[in-house]
């Protein structure tokens, strides 16, 4: 089944509560997918700082001393904030690609969850509540975010098989469904130079969007492309640095419900994910149409 949620805040006064609102939404859908869970949060941009979220199965070994070694390697100050199996590396935006390469050279077992100016991604095997607690997601602030609780169908139950998938700076995607032409699309994207970490169909969808946007399309246009180029069942919820988008395939058998108020736009696989949002009783609630792109930008 899988459960997906998304929340795009319009009202700045809600930003301190983003993590707790998104956590509650995701936990309410736990029984849609017990295998793994993940969340991507878009925090407030800060000047001269970009972030890389990294993960290690042996955080004590891999994260210890990484900040000094990394700073030495790239010649710029680096900070690391460790949260359980994940850590957020901060450095100057100009050095972000160099830092990414240096991390992989210094610690080959570290996995990169995502990178960008604002996004942080936390995902692990287990139920949403455990994942949310482990990374203290409730206390996180931000402008928008997406989350996923996974019932694995297309690839293994591993941390890397959990959603969200991030394949470009500040881009990430969660998916409910299964794609049938992901191997072909993956081959085409590999030919373009995209790199893949898993056999997962959703990673292909994320990479497809990154590729489209790298070719100059905006988020809405990139999402439009999924309708002709990706085959299978999907409800996608995507985040970019300042945007939030939703699209369902033309058959649209995967459930989706959205709500909009003056304060936010929210997405849930089911209505119960939205019931605790402020003002939900007076929100415009609707089911997104099949083969129709919805997106918002700050």
């Amino acid at each position, binding site marked *: 089944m899988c459960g997906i949620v998304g929340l795009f805040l319009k009202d700045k006064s809600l930003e301190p509560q983003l993590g707790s609102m998104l956590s509650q939404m995701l936990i309410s859908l736990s029984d849609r997918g017990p295998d793994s869970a993940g969340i991507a949060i878009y925090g407030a941009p800060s000047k001269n700082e970009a972030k890389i979220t990294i993960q290690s199965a042996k955080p004590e070994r891999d994260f210890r001393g990484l900040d000094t070694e990394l700073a030495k390697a790239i010649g710029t100050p680096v900070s690391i904030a460790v949260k359980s199996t994940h850590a957020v590396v901060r450095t100057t935006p100009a050095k972000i690609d160099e830092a990414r390469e240096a991390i992989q050279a210094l610690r080959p077992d570290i996995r990169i969850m995502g990178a960008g100016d604002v996004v942080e991604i936390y995902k692990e095997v287990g139920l949403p509540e455990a994942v949310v607690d482990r990374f203290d997601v409730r206390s996180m602030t931000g402008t928008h975010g997406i989350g996923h609780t996974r019932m694995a169908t297309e690839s293994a139950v591993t941390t890397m098989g959990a959603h969200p998938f991030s394949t470009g700076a500040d881009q990430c995607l969660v998916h409910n469904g299964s794609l049938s032409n992901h191997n072909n699309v993956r081959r085409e994207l590999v030919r373009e130079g995209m790199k893949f970490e898993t056999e997962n169909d959703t990673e292909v969808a994320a990479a497809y969007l990154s590729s489209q946007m790298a070719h100059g399309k905006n988020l809405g246009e990139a999402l439009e492309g999924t309708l002709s180029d990706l085959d299978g069942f999907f409800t996608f919820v995507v985040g970019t640095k300042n945007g939030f988008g939703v699209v369902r395939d033309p058959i649209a*058998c995967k459930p989706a419900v959205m709500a909009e108020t003056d304060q936010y736009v929210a997405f849930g696989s*089911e*209505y119960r994910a939205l019931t605790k949002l402020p003002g939900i009783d007076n929100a415009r609630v609707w089911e997104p149409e*099949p083969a129709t792109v919805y997106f918002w930008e700050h």
Partner: protein
Amino acid sequence: MPATKLSKAATQDHASRIFDLDVSSLRELNQALHNLAPGSNETAWEVLHPKGSHSVAVGVDQPVTIDVRGSVGYYCGGMNSGSTITVHGSAGPGVGENMMSGSIIVKGDASQYAGATGKGGLLVIEGNASSRCGISMKGIDIVVHGNIGHMSAFMAQSGNLVVLGDAGDALGDSIYEARLFVRGKVDSLGADCIAKEMRPEHLELLQGLLDRAGITGVKPSEFKRYGSARTLYNFNIDNADAY
């Protein structure tokens, strides 16, 4: 039951039995409904704070009224047999799935496959219904005040679907024998579904359905009827593209 008991029952003050799902579990609610014996005096039920719960009032088989105050998740009123369920909110996927008799009224919108496989009873959706409304319907009557989504009445076998608004793509795809009445536009008809003549018996049938759904100010003559061309009943190689 002796007449004396009946008359006594009729004079009792029957306060509705209230289940607050913030306090009681869904299992307690459904078990209490299933425990109803024929002729029970507990005829009026109210469900508070459903908050999108699944399977609210599923499998009820007594002629009671159930008012659900809020929106429900999957399969509300599924397999209903004889009860009258009103959802004062919207309904998730599969509302009234496999209903046998009785009625379900959704004051808001309904999600996918409303009334799927229903064998009898009346399902009224006062808002819009989503895709696959009435899929494989087998005798249920469905009346939608608003619009319905794509692939509605797919493989419908029996019963009536009345839509006051518009229908999405592939209405009545691979339909067997159900009657579809649509007042607005139809995006496209599915395989083997065709527009049909509105004869006097259909106008009469439709008026009856509108009456049962409490709809006034709408004339049966404003609707078009759709149904099966019956060309898919037997395999014909010329139809291979339609399968």
